[in-house]
Each structure stands twice: as structure tokens, then as C-alpha cells.
């Protein structure tokens, strides 16, 4: 068994009395793409929020490269090598596209860059000098990705990046994410579009109501009775 980048062990996250994560465990190896799927409200974003330090876990452990990271701030985690995008993109609206990326470059100071030019990598070369507030939501999501890449993450958490893209753009994006994985980045990809997941991940985890209900290949998931029940039975 190779050393994993991320180990989530029996994590519980409560909002009031409601258990949004109810004992979730998962691990990802370097260069692996793990897809996290499941119906709306099943806890996918919450899982990313806990791993990236936005919310503390109420129970359980989060390990990054074998080291316990519960309770560390987002900025410390970013410097350790964890980064993410947001389901609803969060650009710095008062800054230009390029300045958005510069904030991450200058504050995280990665020892070795992951990509030479994050904006060129995500295909946003031509909008560098635009104010981020003038981007459409698809571009804002790519800007989130570029900013995350500027921090040279070893673990990248991607939350519904593909929503609203056309098939050609999806293929391109899938290619980019696979390229990152081939450079050793571990990716946790939360996604609704199964076609997109199919292009990306060997392994998927299906969540429902804060718990994992399946782990395996997407093809196997499609045949799994519990998974089918959750998706079709409502």
C-alpha cells in the first residue's frame, strides 16, 4: 500500500443537531483522481469544507501526508499544499484576473511551481487584465482553479467545476485535471455529471445523507442496488 496524501478517518460534522457528515472515511494516493458523487445535500461540499479547514471536524481525524491537520487554518493548509475551488466561485472582485492569481502566488510562495502559468493552463490567457467582477460564472470557476494551482497543491479539491460547460469544454477540462494527476497531484473531484466523472476517475465514492454508501468503479456503482435506489428512489 502506497503512502496516501489524504486520509479522512471517521469524520463527523454537525450543524446544530444535524449530522452533515456522519462518520466519513476516505483516502487518496498521489496522482489519483477520486470522484465524490451523491445527491444534493449528501455532504460532498461539507467534506471539502472540512478537509480545507473552513469548518472544524466535530469528530474524527484528517491526515495530510500522514500528519494530523485538524484545526489548522485555511492559510496554513494552503501553504502545506492543500487547495480547492468553490461550488459557487469566489473571485476577488475588486482585483484583476491576474492579480487574483498573484495573491495566491505571493502568499503561498510554493517552492516549486506546479504549472508555469496557471492562467494559461486553464485557458484564461486572454482575460488577464479584466476585472474579475466582469467574468461570467464559468470563467470565475476557472479562475478559482487557476488561483488554486498557483499554490502548487499536492491535494486539490474540486467542487462541481463542470456545471454549465459544453461537451468540448468538459473534454478539455478533464484533460487538464488528468494532466495534474499525472504530475502527482491527488484530486478529490465532486461532480454531478456522470459523463465527466467517467472521463476522469477510476474510483468513485457515493455519498448519501452524510455517509458513504458505495466505493468502487463508476460502472460498478451504476449496478449497485443501494446506489440505484438513492438516485432513482429519492
Amino acid at each position: 500500500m502506497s503512502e496516501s496524501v489524504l486520509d479522512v478517518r471517521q469524520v463527523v460534522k454537525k450543524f446544530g443537531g444535524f449530522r452533515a457528515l456522519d462518520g466519513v472515511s476516505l483516502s487518496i494516493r498521489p496522482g489519483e483522481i477520486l470522484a465524490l458523487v451523491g445527491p444534493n445535500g449528501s455532504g460532498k461540499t461539507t467534506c471539502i469544507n472540512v478537509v480545507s479547514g473552513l469548518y472544524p471536524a466535530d469528530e474524527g481525524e484528517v491526515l495530510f501526508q500522514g500528519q494530523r491537520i485538524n484545526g489548522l487554518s485555511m492559510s496554513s493548509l494552503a501553504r502545506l499544499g492543500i487547495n480547492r475551488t468553490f461550488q459557487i466561485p469566489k473571485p476577488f472582485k475588486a482585483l484583476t484576473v491576474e492579480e487574483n492569481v498573484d495573491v495566491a502566488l505571493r502568499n503561498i510562495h510554493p517552492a516549486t511551481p506546479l504549472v508555469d502559468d496557471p492562467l494559461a493552463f486553464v485557458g484564461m490567457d486572454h482575460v488577464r487584465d479584466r476585472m474579475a467582477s466582469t467574468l461570467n460564472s464559468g470563467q470565475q470557476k476557472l479562475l478559482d482553479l487557476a488561483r488554486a494551482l498557483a499554490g502548487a497543491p499536492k491535494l486539490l479539491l474540486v467542487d462541481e467545476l463542470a456545471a454549465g460547460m459544453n461537451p468540448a469544454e468538459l473534454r478539455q477540462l478533464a484533460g487538464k485535471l488528468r494532466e495534474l494527476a499525472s504530475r502527482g497531484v491527488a484530486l478529490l473531484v465532486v461532480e454531478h455529471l456522470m459523463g465527466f466523472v467517467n472521463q476522469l476517475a477510476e474510483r468513485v465514492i457515493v455519498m448519501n445523507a452524510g455517509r458513504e454508501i458505495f466505493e468502487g468503479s463508476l460502472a460498478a456503482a451504476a449496478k449497485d442496488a443501494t446506489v440505484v435506489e438513492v438516485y432513482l428512489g429519492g
Partner: protein
Amino acid sequence: MLKRLGSMGLPLVVLVLIFAVGPYTVFNNPATLFEMMAFLALAQGINVLYGFTGYLPFGYVGFFGAGAYGASVVVLKLHFPILLAILAGGVIAVLISVILLPMLRLSGAYFAIGSLAAAEIVYNVVANPNLQSVTNGPYGINLAPVFNATLSYWLMLVLVLVAVTFVIWLRHSSFGFSLLALRDDPVSAGMAGVNIVRTRTLAWLASAFIAGLAGAIYAWHISVFYPGTMFDLNISIFAIVFTLFGGRATVWGPIIGTVVLYGLYNWIGFSTPQYFQLVYGLLIVGLVLFLPNGVMSLIGRRRKSRHAERKGAVMNV
């Protein structure tokens, strides 16, 4: 590069022309110019905090008063040389801001009101008759032994230039961009590696230091004052309005806002006081409704749309 340095330094040149050359040429009114400089320093201090972090400090005058009283006590009781005492005034304002650090956990209106309450507390401590032996309580301060109208005038100009230079630096440094990022979105700023607590704290301390120094120099200049003079809430309100009018998070905004509105205040306010409140009130309402980012946003908007046109042309090819 030289051109860029030139345009960055332009505000400093303009300020020197108005306040160093002005008194000997067109505006022979040092008292008004001095007050205007004090507001310029305060407006830039508000700019550092509100413009770059989004915290609106209605109680900002508390730091001004603390600096004024701090410097005075240090001069009168500890017999420090005046320049050192003024520095001490700035440091005392910073110490108070350190005590008030937990306030940064409040947001929006809660912070604004909290800062108001904090200023009120500092005022009440200073004006307390039981502290007469230290602050002379409600009976005021007399700095006649060190009074020097000319030197204090020049020192206020130095402070204005330093504050403006600091804001120019903020506009061009990683630290300033981190602040703006934090103002826009603290969550993604954190994920971009911005140390949220440290960055906000430094901006808070810096803005307190500016106000403390301004208060100390102001006290030296007017030399006789009471707690009510230095903790007058109108001082906060004016500095905030000037900053909003000109445009926050810019170098020019607080300068334009202070020069125009304080000029207007002197002109209308003193010659026809009955119109002053009307004009000023209408201005504030119009500002909030139609120009939330101040006069500078008019210039910024034009520049941006020209920029967008150019980009559009390129993309259509």
C-alpha cells in the same frame, strides 16, 4: 518605470504644492490648511481600515483623542521632548487598538457601533474628574510651554505625506493586495494563503497609529483643548464622509474628498451656515445612492470601459 514612479508620486507633489507653497502664495490661511491636513491624515487612516479591509470605524476619533491626550500627558507629566511625546501619542493609540483587537471579530454594523462605544469609553476615562491628576479630567489641557504653531504645521504635513506614501505602497504591494482580497472574500483569501488574522491586525494597528499621531500633532498645534474637542464624533464622521466621497481604497480618493468637501465646508459653512447643512446633507444622500465608490470611480469606470473596448477588439479578430 520612471513614468510609473512619477505618477505614483504625483499626489505627494500636489500636497506639497497646496500645503507648503500654498501658505506663501494663494491661500494665506494656515489655520484652515492645518485643519485640512489633519483631516487628510485621518481620511487616509480611515482609508487604510475601511478602504482596504471593509471595517467602518465610526469611533475612529477615539484613537485621535488618545493620541492627543497621550502626547500631552507624556509632555506635561513625564517631560518628554515634544517630538518623542508625539511618537508616544501614536504608540498609545496603537496600544489601545491592541486592547480592542477582539472587535475585529465583529462585522458590519456591529463593528461600526462597537468602535463607537469603545471611543466613548476612552473619552469617559480621559474626562473622568478622578483622573484629574493625570489628564486634568474635564478641565482640559494647556500645552503652552511647548507651543509651536509653525513646527506643528510642518509636522502635520510630514504625517500627511507619510500616510499618503503608505497608501501608495498598499496600492502596489503584496500586502495591500492581500488586504483587498480579504475584504472581497475572506474564505478564498484564506485559501490563497493570506493569513487573515495577521493581515487584518496590521491594517488595524496602522490606522490607529496614523490617527494617534494626527491627534498628538493636532494637540500640539492648538495647544489648549478639552476632552470634548478631541473626542468630537464629528471628526470621525467628517473623515469617513471625505473618504467615501473621494473613493475608498484609492490614493487620490481621500485627498480629493477632503480638499473638496472641507473646502466647501469652510466656504458655505462659515459664510452662510444656514445652507451648509442642507448642501452637505444632499451631497451625502446623493453620494450613497449614486456614487457608492466615490468620485474616483467615475475616472476608474471610464478607464475600465476603454480597456474593455480594446480587449473586445482583440477578441473579435
